[in-house]
């Protein structure tokens, strides 16, 4: 009973919040509702017993990602109200609703969990974080390390792209001019 209520409550909440994030003209509203939507999604994770994932969602998404976006927003000096020429709402709704219908249709069919063989079965002996740690450092060690490289790339990329060195472009400046600069 609790699960049902929680599910429907969270569902309505996320859908509503994300709709606001998508449709709102006010950047602050959009941003805030996106962040709250993420928090609610963490709620789903707790609901299905993925505790650790829920925590990660809260820390990484709400904590880090949204903070980054907030900083970005300040940097870009986005005014409160966007002067955005949006694509015509009718068209977007047609496409969006069709997409939603198709997805619903797809996920509507029967799924029989008993026929599935779990490759990483959860056991009752371990708590969720323990099990996650176990899986992450055995079976998924390689992707974990690759993800580390990926974050490193993102870091280097972010630093380089946002760095001061990008302000003057060697590509656009003629070599003769560059020569002079070097000699200075």
């Amino acid at each position: 009973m609790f699960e049902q209520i929680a599910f429907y409550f969270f569902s309505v909440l996320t859908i509503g919040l994300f709709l606001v994030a998508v449709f709102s003209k006010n950047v602050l509203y959009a941003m805030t509702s996106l962040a709250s939507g993420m928090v609610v999604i963490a709620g789903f994770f707790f609901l299905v017993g993925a505790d650790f994932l829920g925590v990660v969602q809260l820390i990484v998404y709400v904590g880090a990602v949204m903070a980054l976006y907030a900083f970005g927003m300040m940097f870009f000096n986005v005014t409160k109200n966007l002067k955005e020429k949006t694509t015509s709402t009718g068209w977007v709704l047609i496409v969006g609703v069709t997409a939603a219908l198709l997805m619903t249709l797809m996920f509507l069919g029967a799924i029989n969990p008993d026929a599935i063989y779990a490759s990483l079965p959860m056991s009752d002996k371990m708590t969720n974080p323990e099990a996650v740690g176990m899986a992450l450092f055995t079976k998924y060690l390689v992707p974990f390390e690759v993800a580390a490289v990926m974050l490193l790339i993102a870091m280097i990329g972010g630093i380089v792209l946002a760095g001061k060195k990008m302000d003057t472009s060697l590509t656009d400046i003629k070599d003769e001019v560059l020569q002079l600069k070097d000699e200075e």
Partner: protein
Amino acid sequence: MESLVYIALFAPLLSSLFAGSFAMTPKKQFVGVVSSFLLFISFAASAILGYHLLVTNEPIHVKLMDWIAAGDLNISFGFIVDHVSVTMMFVVTLISTVVHVYSIGYMDHDKSFNRFFSYLSAFVFSMLILVMSDNFAGLFIGWEGVGVCSWLLIGFWYHKADVTRDINPSISPSWAANEAFIMNRIADLGMLVGLFIIYWNVGSLQYDVVFSAIPNMTQAVLTTAAMALFIGAMGKSAQFPLHTWLTDAMEGPTPVSALIHAATMVTAGVFLVIRANPIFALTPEVSYFIAALGTFVAFFAASMALVNRDLKRIIAFSTLSQLGYMFAAAGLGAYWIALFHLGAHAFFKALLFLGAGNVMHAMHDELDIFKMGGLKKAMRGTYLYMGLASLALAGIPPLAGFFSKDAIIETAFNEGSLILWATLVITAGMTAFYSFRQVFLTFHGDERYHEFGIHPHEMYKYVLVAMSPLAILAVIAGFFKDGFNDFIINLLPNYQMSEHTHHLALYLGLIVLAVAVSGILLAYIKYNKRLVRSEKTENGFIYKLLANQYYIPVLYEAVISKPYAELSKLMWKNVDMKIVDATVDAIAKFLYRSGDKSRGMQSGNLSNYLNWMAIGAIALLLVSILSLIAA
């Protein structure tokens, strides 16, 4: 050994590409040198392969790749080095090497020097594909390749303008090139039909597969196939009635004439008959037709050579005539003799042509032998070479021509066809006459060239040295006849004279010899001292007939070319312009317009792109759902 096969085959290609990369730049001496060197490498590889085959007697079969493997059609791109192809390779690469070196001197002042070498090497490459291929498809590719290259080479001086037939019987290089190409295309159609018949019935074009399947084919099929193949051979080897292009092809630079129109390309037809001998051996009617046609062409061409005044054309006619001999031998079943004559002929005919090139060079491109005479003083080396080659051509022992030609005439006797034999003997006499008529008129007698203010000079030394291998082979090739026989019968059916003929061999040989010598004597009497022209003979019917090549070129023009041109004009105006052109234009326009329209999709706006993406995804999902419902 496999790598040698590739080296022999692809060195000319490399040479062609190398020279081709300099095609647009001014003359560079090293282009010629490098090309010649690469050709020499190809020759050396061929020689080693030949030796290998001689010692081990094992053909080398390499398979480059599955060339066309589409559905059931499976043509592997394979090459075979067996007794026949190695003989051809040896001859082709040797002569090509000499001709390449020769061309360095001959094309010295031509501004398209580099381009010339590119074409020449490309030609050799095509020819090697033709002879080395292990299947009819590869042979056909090489066949077309040499056709294209000869078109390029005949028309090498394409900038020369058209003139009328009275001034230049072949009108212009580009006209001659087109004529050669078109005539060959007509014949190729026949060949293509032959290949289709074979493929239809056998399901393969691989030589060994085809030949092993012959017993399962009906006589009618075999005969049709043999006929069709021979039509192809007729075109490439310029047999009557498709012979006119060969003499006109003399418009090309002389090294080209030596290489293509004497030693290699024109022998491709003979090569085809020899290659496909299992087919021809089982179709006696076709074979007899080949022999008869060959004999006829031998005589027919020789007769035209009797009165011609153009140095190169005389040699060209003699080539035609000798090709006739080869076909006669092949038609009579003496394939190895045909091949032997092919090789021997290649040496002395190339020598003759290159000698003619020297003369032409000395005479500032003058080719009329009536305007020459007494050149032996100025051109000792060339005189020696041409004399030797003419002796060989006339069939005087112990030179190469004697052995090979005599064997063919003997074969005709042996087969009991006395008419063929007699014709061939008479032709031998005519051959001797016209070749020495040409030698005497060119090198002996009064020095008529003074009237035209020409100061002849001998060719470069290295060119003469380069020609020496040919001279040596023209002399000694005949002695290898028995050895060649032992070698080649590993692949080709052995042909030996019957006991009866064997008895008479000495007498038969003496008859031929006597006829040949009398031909030379006649020429000596008539032309050695000086040129005596008699108005009466030259205005006589026969002389006129011969000098105008039996009016065949004129006839072709009147009966075929002109009406065809009229028809083409009509077609062009009514059909082509209105229907074909309009359709092609419409298609092009449609494509272009739809291109322009679909550009709208690439609006540059990311939002648009994302829309496309979403629509695409939804459409794909819809398609999958619909196909599920339909299923």
